[in-house]
């Protein structure tokens, strides 16, 4: 009985959209055609042939495959650095948290400012290093947009990895480390045999959360490039948005959205079984 009100609200975002997506994805509704006739699998066939969709998936995968390991390694190194006593340690950790809680939209705004070709500090610093002006168009030039977005992404979420891994490292059994050290085990051996297995549960959850977040990457890209130039940085979320709310391909968007839900649910079910999120 206590569960009822919450469940009722959950139905709004969980069950209703799912049923609706299934229904509409088999119809042929577009901006021009409002008929609700069922057209079978035409929309799903279109998914297979839509190169722009597959490119968007590829872009998403690129962001994921580069950003995730970077965040993990940087976060782990920082966690090692901050693990032991350090003057002002708590204050520094407190400050490092800030990017995590900033809205991704604001993060995007911050990095648009930073990367601005004329008014931003990054080009200026680069200019100092190379000795002449560097008016790089970070959010427009095809070869520069990926680094720009990745920098913003890694800046915002490395502290997330750092915080979680710091907590995990602090819980590693000290006596085990000492025993291994006395027995003559080297640094890497200790890391791979004792530290890594001990922090793995936390690391796996951190990776899972970040992976799902990266899969739906939208806000930062939206502020920095809007998916451009052209569709070069279009992620799967931006693609779906533009199909649904710019082209008004209602039924096709429903099919795409449904595929995303099905795919992610499969990943989640697999992951939740392996990663013990519920203690």
């Amino acid at each position, binding site marked *: *009985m*206590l*569960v009822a*009100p*919450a469940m009722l*609200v*959950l139905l709004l*975002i969980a069950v*209703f959209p799912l049923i*609706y*997506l299934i229904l509409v994805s088999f119809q042929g509704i577009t901006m021009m055609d409002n008929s609700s006739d069922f057209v079978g699998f035409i929309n799903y066939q279109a998914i297979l042939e839509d190169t722009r969709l597959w490119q968007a998936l590829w872009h998403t995968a690129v962001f994921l495959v580069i950003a995730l390991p970077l965040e993990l390694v940087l976060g782990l190194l*920082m966690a090692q*650095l901050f693990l032991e006593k*350090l*003057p002002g340690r708590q204050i*520094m950790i*407190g*400050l490092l*948290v*800030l990017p995590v*809680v*900033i*809205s991704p*939209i*604001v993060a995007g*705004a911050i*990095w648009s*400012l*930073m990367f601005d070709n004329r*008014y*931003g*500090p990054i080009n*200026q610093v680069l*200019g100092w290093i190379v000795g002449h002006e560097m008016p790089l168009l970070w959010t427009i030039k095809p070869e520069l947009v990926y680094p720009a977005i990745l920098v913003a992404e890694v*800046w915002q979420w490395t502290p997330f990895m750092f915080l*979680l891994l710091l*907590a*995990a490292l602090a819980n590693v059994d000290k006596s085990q480390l000492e025993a291994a050290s006395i027995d003559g085990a080297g640094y890497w051996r200790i890391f791979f045999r004792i530290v890594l297995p001990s922090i793995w549960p*936390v690391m796996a*959850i*951190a990776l899972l*959360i970040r992976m799902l977040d990266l899969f*739906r990457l939208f*806000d930062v890209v*939206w502020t920095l490039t809007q998916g451009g130039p052209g569709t070069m940085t279009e992620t*799967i*979320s931006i693609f*779906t*948005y533009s199909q*649904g*709310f710019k082209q008004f391909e209602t039924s096709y968007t*429903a099919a795409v*959205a449904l595929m*995303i*839900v099905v795919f*992610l*649910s499969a990943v*989640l079910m697999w992951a939740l079984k392996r990663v013990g*999120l*519920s203690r």
Partner: protein
Amino acid sequence: MGLKTCGVVSVNQSPWSYRLRQHLRLVVAIGITLVFLFPVYWLAMNSFKTADEIYASPPVWWPASLQFNNYWVLFKDGDVVSVWNSLVVATVSTVLAMSLGTLCAYSLARFKTGGDHLSNWIISQRMVPPIAVVFPIFLLYVFLGWVDTYVGMILLYTAFNLPYVIWMMRGYIQDIPRSLEEAALVDGCTHWEVFWKVVIPMCKGGLFATAIFTFIFAWNEFLFALVLTRTEVTTYTVQVTHYFGGQSNFWTKIAAMSVLGTLPVFIAVVFMQRYLVRGISLGAVKG
């Protein structure tokens, strides 16, 4: 002989090189902190610049004086309404999600309603990408006339944050020793009284932290707000993106509005350092 065994300094490190390493660590740590903070500094500093200083190339790293004009303009032009909208939507939806969610969490934690399957299903709802659900919800809202209304946004954020609240509060309630509640029951309390007089006071901290996180999620949200608002309940995140133009960007407004939107979040974080790790790791790390 006695000297060598009493210290914790390991054998191959002289105290001197140990101290050098500690100093080096400190320098690197400060350097990293500064690198991560610099973009935030740049944003805040730009919000206090004059337009001439913002549109200066090469950029000005330190404004000649702190100007509040950019903020004043936001008030004068009425843009600040979007911050108010964010505040209303985030606050009301947080209160709703916390009340519904905590009740549900209590039931899941103590009466094992639905078992682990229900709990897992609930948390997996949290992980479904917004883009997949926003589309049908948009069409539903058009049908109901809820697009660009407080009701629509509040209800959506309530639903969107419920899984998080249920999941986190379930964890905090499970941390309370059961014997306390049983003792209260034996003393003649009803379940309802136990909930109010034992459970809620015992998980005050967790309740507070979860509420803050719920607020932050709603406060920072963009995609739902982009799709479901037009002019009436535009939130501050959507407002920020309005300042980006095809030809040029209104940096003065972008900077000032971003700072307004970030300030409450920073203040909130200061008050919940203890619960931060648990909150962002979906309860997996108890910190």
